[in-house]
């Protein structure tokens, strides 16, 4: 087990190095850098000014040199300076992380706490009206893009309350906090909830046919105990996989949701930085996301072993 974890950590490191190269190269393949964008806006271009600015930002160096500078800095905790704000990238990124993390955690919590029980309910009452209703709702959840859902929520809010929630870092009341965090989290988590529900349902249907479910009934266990204690614990593995993958995909949904709800989080910041070719911000943010995804995957695999005694990671 210990050897397995060490090997996994080594693999994670290799993955992250690979991602750093890919994102670094991709960014520079995309036409134009911040200097081009600035000078294009100005209209008149003095080549020496441009060259000076590129030199100042280190963009004139060979690409491998630029990469090594970045990674070297990264290892020292130096993420470089934002081209746009000219502040340290770390200072720009750090305060935005809790905002996005809170949204993402709420969205995942929402999707698991809604998706899993409804999936169980749907499977247990397979073929009933409840099952069909839940399946239609989950299908709509999968079909509605989160930005559209977000817009609908904002429009509904305006027509119902005559106003819409505006981001405030220090909400004063519970309702305000709910409007600022929970509503966007639900908008982005609805899709995951729908997916979680579908996977839970199909996994439960499979498990409910197993012999040991009949054994549990033959012991005199109640339906609740059969469904949750015996069936769900066996059915949860694929659900965890999906939630793990969703945690990674969530960032895509968050970009749109943060934009729609005007939340100054990491996701929206990434898109803005990309527009300005603000390399230090984009590179480091993508690396941050990569770390989150890799760690999420690792956590899922460890959870497998914790839940299913048949899964043991050996050498």
């Amino acid at each position, binding site marked *: 087990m210990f050897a397995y974890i060490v090997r996994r950590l080594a693999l994670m490191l290799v993955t992250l190095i690979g991602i750093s190269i890919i994102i670094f190269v991709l960014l520079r393949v995309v036409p134009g850098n911040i200097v081009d964008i600035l000078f294009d806006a100005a209209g008149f271009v003095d080549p020496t000014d441009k060259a000076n600015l590129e030199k100042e930002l280190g963009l004139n160096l060979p690409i491998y040199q630029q990469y090594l500078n970045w990674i070297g800095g990264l290892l020292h905790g130096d993420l470089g300076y934002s081209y746009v704000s000219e502040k340290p990238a770390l200072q720009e990124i750090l305060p935005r992380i809790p905002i996005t993390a809170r949204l993402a955690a709420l969205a995942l919590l929402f999707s698991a706490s809604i998706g899993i029980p409804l999936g169980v309910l749907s499977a247990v009452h397979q073929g009933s009206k409840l099952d069909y209703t839940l399946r239609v709702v989950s299908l709509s959840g999968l079909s509605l893009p989160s930005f559209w859902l977000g817009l609908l929520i904002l429009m509904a809010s305006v027509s119902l309350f005559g106003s819409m929630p505006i981001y405030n870092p220090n909400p004063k009341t519970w309702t305000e906090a709910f409007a600022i965090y929970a509503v966007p989290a639900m908008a982005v988590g609805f899709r995951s909830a729908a997916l979680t529900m579908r996977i839970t349902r199909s996994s439960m249907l499979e498990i409910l046919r197993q*012999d040991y479910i*009949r*054994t549990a009934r033959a012991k*005199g266990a109640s339906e609740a105990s059969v469904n949750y204690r015996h069936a769900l614990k066996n059915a949860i593995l694929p659900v965890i996989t999906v939630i793990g993958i969703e945690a990674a995909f969530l960032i895509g949904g968050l970009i749109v949701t943060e934009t729609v709800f005007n939340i100054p989080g990491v996701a929206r910041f990434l898109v803005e930085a990309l527009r300005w070719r603000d390399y230090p911000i984009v590179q480091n943010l993508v690396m941050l996301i990569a770390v989150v995804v890799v760690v999420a995957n690792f956590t899922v695999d460890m959870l497998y072993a914790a*839940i299913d005694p048949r899964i043991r990671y050996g050498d």
Partner: protein
Amino acid sequence: MNEARKDDTILDVKNLQTVFFTNSGLFRAVDDVSFNVRRGETLAIVGESGCGKSVTALSVMRLVPDPPGRVVGGSVTLEGTDLLSLDEAEMRKIRGNRMSMIFQEPMTSLNPVMRIGDQITEVLRLHQEMTSKEAWAKAVEMLRLVRIPEPDRRAQEYPHQLSGGMRQRAMIAMALACRPALLIADEPTTALDVTIQAQILALIVDLQKTLGTGLILITHDLGVVAQTAQRVIVMYAGKKVEEATVEELFANPKHPYTRGLMASMPAVISFGAKTDARLNEIPGMVPSLTNLPPGCAFAPRCSLAIDRCRAEYPPLQEVDGDHFAACWRATELVGAP
């Protein structure tokens, strides 16, 4: 049936009818089946696959999956309680407590993510007032009773860490933990190695004697029946076609189907068969339950069938003292096949 025997009856099943509603129509999986089990007695239910043995057992436990199945008639009385009139909550208090069941597949009948000890503890805590510590101690004691070596350690293990025979022992421990009056064993040894089969059977019979449990043993193996049961019922296409004591049935089978089953057993010296003789078989297949012939369901495969068999279903009649058979020609059949 004399009075003394009646008093001892723990399970009395009368005219049980279980039907399944399927896309290809309604079929009677169990049709008008009656039997009883006395304290400490073993009743074997014999028949080939699909004849309704398991559904009979599940009907008694009221575990027939509904839909598509449903018990539509008859009565099931366990220790004086009419089970078919109980609601689900009352029924749960009886399952695993007054009667319990072990299944054919020990490999899949235990929950793979629960420790063996927890699975036994669960049934104890469902039916008896016990702290979790007491229940665990009792679970270990049960594992010792079913002769699992190192029960303390095994209780901590998960099903995948046990062999098939061990798992079936654990199932037996679980089924007997609350000292039920009735144990139903649905082909408990079919999935096991031959050497293990004998051990498990011996264990079941031994514990049954010690605990005085009534046992319904479902099997298609007449060898198992001969070793363990006192009485036998033979089922064919959802109906009971013969009932007798073991000695009587083997000495004097009255239904051609029973005779066919015996003739198709591999050579057993006591039957006087030659060891190099070709194995007999019953020609044809069990008829589809959705499309039964009007007369005797066995008639199409029966070498003794007459016109009456094809037209009219033979009622179950007492052909000898305590020996019942549903065959028009039962009285003509004498001796072992």
